[in-house]
């Protein structure tokens, strides 16, 4: 078998017994197979669904309108948390990539978590770009301006789409892991550029308000709560998605390895025959 051992255990594995005996499951009942889920991820998924419902209630109904922005502030309850999660996702990708490159025992599990986290990050930064664009149309009168924050965020998005494309290039799994890890460590340097772009350049986009001690922003209690709830909810959603996605990547590697094994065996049989 290749050195990309299929026995590399996923980095994140919550070890809980499942009620189903997989050995007795037939292909016809594949829909009932647990797949990448465990009792813990099911509980986490249920919690996320409840929190998303609560977020919609607080963000759209219970929280007050902003004195300046009016009701458009309600877009912030999804826009801000999604970009926060995207930053975090890309940082996790960089940390896991660094761990893969630095550890003597290079487990592909690090690479899979890095890839899963980057994919989820790309999704969330795309959502943040779109929701920000809708907010910009209402507030600035245009969907898009080549402002420093918007442009650097778009560049961040394109960079990580490129990272995902690099992961799909040919080669062994270890080649994939090595080159994508190097790229991830370079790409993460864009995050401070995006974050501080509003201070480095004249920008239409406002500076940080809630997390900025120098900002004189007073938020109504329910508005702050809705924002905080959004951050926590989408962070937990991110964790749930990465847990599942890195297991899917492990299964994809397993199936790819097995396909390679079968191809080699067939070729040998042909040679012998």
């Amino acid at each position, binding site marked *: 078998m290749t050195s990309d051992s299929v026995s590399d255990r996923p980095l994140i594995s919550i070890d809980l017994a499942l009620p189903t005996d997989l050995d007795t499951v037939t292909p016809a009942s594949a829909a009932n197979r647990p797949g990448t889920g465990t009792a813990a991820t099911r509980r986490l998924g249920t919690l996320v669904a409840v929190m998303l419902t609560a977020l919609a209630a607080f963000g*759209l109904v219970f929280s007050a309108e902003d004195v300046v922005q009016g*009701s458009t502030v309600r877009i912030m309850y999804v826009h801000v948390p999604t970009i926060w999660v995207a930053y975090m996702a890309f940082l996790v990708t960089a940390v896991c990539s660094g761990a893969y490159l630095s550890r003597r025992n290079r487990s592909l599990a690090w690479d899979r978590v890095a890839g899963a986290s980057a994919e989820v990050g790309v999704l969330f930064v795309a959502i943040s770009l779109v929701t920000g664009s809708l907010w910009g149309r209402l507030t600035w009168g245009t969907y898009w301006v080549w402002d420093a924050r918007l442009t650097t965020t778009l560049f961040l998005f394109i960079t990580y789409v490129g990272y995902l494309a690099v992961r799909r290039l040919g080669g062994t799994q270890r080649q994939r892991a090595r080159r994508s890890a190097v790229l991830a460590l370079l790409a993460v340097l864009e995050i401070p550029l995006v974050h501080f772009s509003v201070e480095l350049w004249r920008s239409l986009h406002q500076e940080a308000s809630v997390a900025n001690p120098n900002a004189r922003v007073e938020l109504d209690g329910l508005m702050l709560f809705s924002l905080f709830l959004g951050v926590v909810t989408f962070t937990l959603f991110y964790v*749930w998605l990465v847990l599942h996605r890195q297991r899917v990547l492990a299964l994809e590697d397993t199936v790819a390895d097995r396909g390679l094994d079968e191809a080699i065996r067939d070729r040998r049989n042909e040679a012998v025959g």
Partner: protein
Amino acid sequence: MDHAGFILLSWVLTFAATGAYARFVVRRGRDLAARATREEMPWT
């Protein structure tokens, strides 16, 4: 609520995109799990 269309569109897009991705991941996992043994799924 002023601008309800834009606001609801933002929320619907967010929920739809994340929901569709979650559905894709879970389905892909189930499909691949059907081709794997229990030993190949150490989280089970």
